[in-house]
């Protein structure tokens, strides 16, 4: 009566089951990768110890965004489109202008480039409490764009390659030659 052979299991519904699971995962998946502008905040300092760093006026570019989302660089009103070129000129100081930042030897020598000089310029970005986040990010974006354009020029002159073709080590060197120096100061508490 009992058959010797084990009867074959009907596997035709397997496809349906896995289809069902597949559709579940398709729906539940979030594939989007987060992207954004990366920044490092300065560590907090004791207010008593904080005497303010001695920075020469020529080494600071003051970018201020007010509560009406207007941008001023060093006291002059500018449009958002103009920020990048001003920032680039400030970072590179191509003509050796005495009003633009000076260059110094980096604190940590850069491997392979013992005589390289690095700009001392710091871009100080200030905002009001009433500034809209969108404008703030636009300004941040323009400043980042200035830095990345200076970096791609630097990689062209030092390695004779566009930035995107550089190896990890070469990129690190370019980042040491052109460090991102954006100081996000505490805002002026003018408006609520």
């Amino acid at each position, binding site marked *: 009566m009992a058959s010797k052979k084990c009867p074959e299991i009907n596997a035709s519904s397997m496809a349906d089951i896995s289809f069902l699971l597949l559709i579940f995962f398709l729906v539940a998946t979030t594939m989007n*990768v*987060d*992207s954004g502008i*990366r920044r*490092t905040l300065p560590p*907090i300092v004791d207010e008593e110890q904080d005497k303010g760093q001695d920075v020469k006026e020529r080494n600071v570019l003051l970018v201020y965004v007010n509560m009406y989302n207007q941008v001023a660089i060093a006291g002059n009103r500018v449009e958002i489109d103009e920020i990048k*070129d001003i920032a680039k000129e400030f970072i590179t100081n191509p003509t050796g202008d005495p009003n633009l930042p000076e260059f110094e030897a980096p604190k940590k020598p850069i491997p392979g480039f013992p005589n390289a000089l690095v700009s001392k310029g710091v871009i100080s970005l200030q905002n009001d409490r009433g500034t809209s986040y969108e404008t*703030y990010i636009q300004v941040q974006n323009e400043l980042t764009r200035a830095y990345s354009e200076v970096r791609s020029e630097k990689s062209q002159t030092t390695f004779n390659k566009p930035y995107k073709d550089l190896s990890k080590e070469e990129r690190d060197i370019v980042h040491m030659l052109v460090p991102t120096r954006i100081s996000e100061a505490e805002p002026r508490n003018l408006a609520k």
Partner: protein
Amino acid sequence: MAQNIRKKGNKETPAVSTASLPDIIFMLLFFFMVSTSMREVEMQVKLELPDATEAQKLEKKSLASYIYIGPPNDVAKYGSTPKIQLNNAYASIDQIGEFIAAERDKLKEEERPEMTTVIKVNKITHMGMVTDLKQALRRANALNIIYASNKDNKKRDNSIF
């Protein structure tokens, strides 16, 4: 051989074998199972991120913790002033330190310095709130931050070269 083919060719086409279909589906299934990251939090604020051309991708998702700021979904109940959302609930600025400490505890010792805070802020928010958040993060010593924004390549490029 040639005769054989001619003989068959005139008759109806044979049914396509579907025996490998489950295998193919399984392969897709495994791909999605592996690449899935489930949505852990229920959004309770409206997020409309700003656009930025220079947005970089977040490299290590496991090291990221998320803070959301935006107007509440339920305007009738909570009003339309932007609120901070941590995990699944609204929070005040004083809870940031606690939140960061809890997130830091989840990571391994050697990964902690690399911890990144992704702040997703609705673009209509005023900077006052973001500044308070930044100060709280500085106090909590969570210094690596990402201003989440949509990567936007279409934007005009007015560079000089």
